[in-house]
């Protein structure tokens, strides 16, 4: 033992911190259309390349190429484009409203809109989605009323959550959207359970779940993959790798050594890694995984490779921990710009139409904002205080009744 190596503790660090130059050249994306689209009955091991590579459909010229091209008609694509633009406009307004003191908190999904919007349009709404706080695009793509989202964000008298939850913790069963939890990763194994129930009942519906890159470190993530594998649950397990978890780069979730999608292989689950800023690639991967699940072939893991262009939340200042120009230099571009380019390349869209649509979505958000703010912003209007004591249990036990009376409501 005299010649034994002296051990040293490894602590990972990102390539660039504020003030450092941004160099994404090691991340140069592989060409679009390079990876094949396997049969849905594929064995997990045969998705090795898909779990480590990157499924891309849109090339730099804005053309849709390769086996993963979902060959969507222009109408669906315009719907997707509109959903992403509306989501971005919604985020911009609500972030601003928080800054004006009209609510306590907000979270944007800027740069990640394709992940939620494409899936929302690829799946029917009677499937159940178990989202995180960054899939608001799913509700918006499914035409959930913006004013209701705002009523929740303002905790006003018309808040569907009855003033009980922090902003952005939506719930919308009728839209296939499970109640968002603030406790990271908890939804992932729950989605597997929902899918197991669907299988148990001989149903045809499937579940889909989302988790952030950072949150894959939680035990719940690994339990979800184990259960999904053991029971061959009809569920799509989406990891949204937006590179950051507040101030922690993806290396703190173990991404330095492998990809997130590759985790699925270890559990025997077919796994895909997808260009998350490519609306068509996200749509196609979701469709493929949904087909597998509906054919009773079990779960799929999908890593959506994207970038969190916005601060983590209104409480965050990313210039403290990452170079400000990272978002701009992100090699996979912006999902809205890329889909726009594709539609224009297909002759189905124009700069003028895009500008007009941009104005229209901003106006739509503004109008919803006025309507919601007329009901009231945080503190101006709220549900009845006695609702604080309701829904703790189905029926109110004596001690809560007594406490409500003590408060005089």
């Amino acid at each position: 033992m005299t010649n034994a190596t002296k051990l040293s503790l490894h602590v990972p660090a990102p390539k660039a911190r504020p003030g450092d130059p941004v160099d994404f050249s090691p991340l140069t994306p592989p060409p679009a259309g390079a990876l094949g689209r396997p049969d849905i009955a594929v064995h997990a091991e045969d998705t090795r390349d898909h779990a480590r590579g990157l499924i891309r459909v849109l090339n730099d010229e804005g053309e849709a190429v390769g086996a993963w091209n979902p060959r969507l008609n222009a109408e669906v694509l315009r719907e997707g484009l509109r959903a992403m633009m509306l989501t971005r406009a919604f985020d911009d307004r609500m972030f601003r409203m928080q800054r004006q003191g009209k609510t306590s908190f907000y979270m944007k999904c800027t740069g990640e809109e394709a992940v939620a919007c494409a899936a929302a349009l690829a799946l029917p709404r009677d499937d159940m989605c178990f989202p995180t706080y960054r899939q608001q695009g799913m509700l918006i793509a499914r035409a959930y009323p913006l004013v209701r989202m705002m009523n929740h964000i303002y905790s006003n008298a018309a808040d569907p959550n009855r003033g009980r939850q922090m902003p952005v913790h939506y719930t919308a069963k009728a839209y296939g959207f499970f109640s968002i939890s603030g406790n990271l990763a908890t939804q992932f194994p729950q989605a597997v359970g929902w899918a197991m129930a669907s299988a148990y009942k001989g149903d045809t519906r499937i579940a889909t779940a989302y988790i952030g890159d950072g949150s894959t470190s939680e035990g719940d993530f690994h339990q979800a993959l184990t259960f999904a594998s053991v029971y061959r649950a009809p569920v799509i397990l989406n990891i949204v790798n937006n590179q950051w978890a507040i101030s922690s780069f993806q290396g703190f979730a173990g991404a330095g050594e492998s990809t997130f999608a590759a985790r699925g292989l270890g559990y025997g689950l077919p796994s895909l890694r997808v260009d998350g800023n490519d609306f068509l690639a996200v749509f196609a991967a979701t469709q493929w995984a949904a087909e597998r699940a509906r054919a009773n072939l079990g779960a799929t893991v999908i890593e959506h490779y994207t970038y969190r262009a916005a601060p983590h939340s209104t409480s965050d200042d990313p210039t403290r921990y990452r170079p400000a120009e990272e978002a701009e230099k992100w090699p996979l571009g912006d999902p809205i710009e890329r889909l726009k380019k594709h539609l224009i390349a297909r002759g189905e869209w124009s700069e003028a139409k895009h500008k007009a649509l941009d104005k229209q979505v901003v106006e739509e958000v503004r109008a919803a904002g006025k309507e919601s703010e007329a009901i009231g912003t945080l503190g101006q209007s709220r549900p009845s205080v006695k609702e604080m004591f309701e829904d703790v249990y189905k029926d109110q036990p004596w001690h809560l009744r007594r406490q409500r009376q003590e408060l005089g409501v």
Partner: protein
Amino acid sequence: MVQALNSALDVMLARDPDVLIFGEDVGYFGGVFRVTDGLQKKHGLTRCFDAPIAEGGIVAAAIGMGAYGLRPVVEIQFADYIYPAYDQLVSEAARLRYRSAGDFFAPLTVRTPYGGGIFGGQTHSQSPEALFTHVAGLKTVVPSNPHDAKGLLIAAIEDDDPVMFFEPKRLYNGPFDGWHDKPVEPWSKHPASDVPEGHYVVPLGKAAIARAGADVTILAYGTMVHVALAAAAHAEVDAEVIDLRTLVPLDLESIVASVEKTGRCVIVHEATRTSGFGAELAALVQEHCFYALEAPIARVAGWDTPYPHAFEWEYFPGPKRVADALRAVMAA
């Protein structure tokens, strides 16, 4: 209080090479509440670093390090997110010494911001201390001001048992007495903001008298110490406010001495009422001071609901509710 806690960590990192800090966002960034600001830069990457988002993993790793002989100080970003670590704390950290008959022990400190008053809703406002005071083998500490925060944190780190260190997040940047419409005050105007430089200890298991009084004893900790003081002023009652500082092991002697003097007792905490730490306090006061009591013991606590976003100040047991309890106890 943020600077006082930061100073405690700084002092301990400098004094003891076996002390190290990790948790979500505590390294380069310095923590979402800035408590570890600058420590990585000053003491090095392996002394204060980020952790995966895995509270169970954070505590488990700290237990392993503790068993090796280190003194890890870990941060759980919000007490509301501590539950994935519950098994490691309850079944492992708390019992390691007992089950191995002293062969192994894990002297870890778990720092975590807790409590309401910041419109954080149900996942940034909880007060789960009773879930830990109920566990044999864990110590539980709650400071109420910068001076104590630093001295108690140093004592916790130097303690050979696992210590749960709950930081009242509403007190991070100033004393808060529950009158939420009043302008926010900085700590600098408060006498307890006088924090000595360097190493000092506020011993675990010792309460402080935050206000001496003759008529009624208020038992409080954390933010509620300030609320209790405001309530006593509001109700114009000569209350003795005891700042428990450590819940386990509890300074029963100070409590008994005070209640025997005043003959009345009001217990306040932010946590939900049912099975809250107030129940334990009420039982102890009843057991030890029964013949001195001139009125039933009163408890003022959070309602037995999750912490609601829009009803922050109806939920938070503020000075008005505490004052009502004081008047009722005085009238009894």
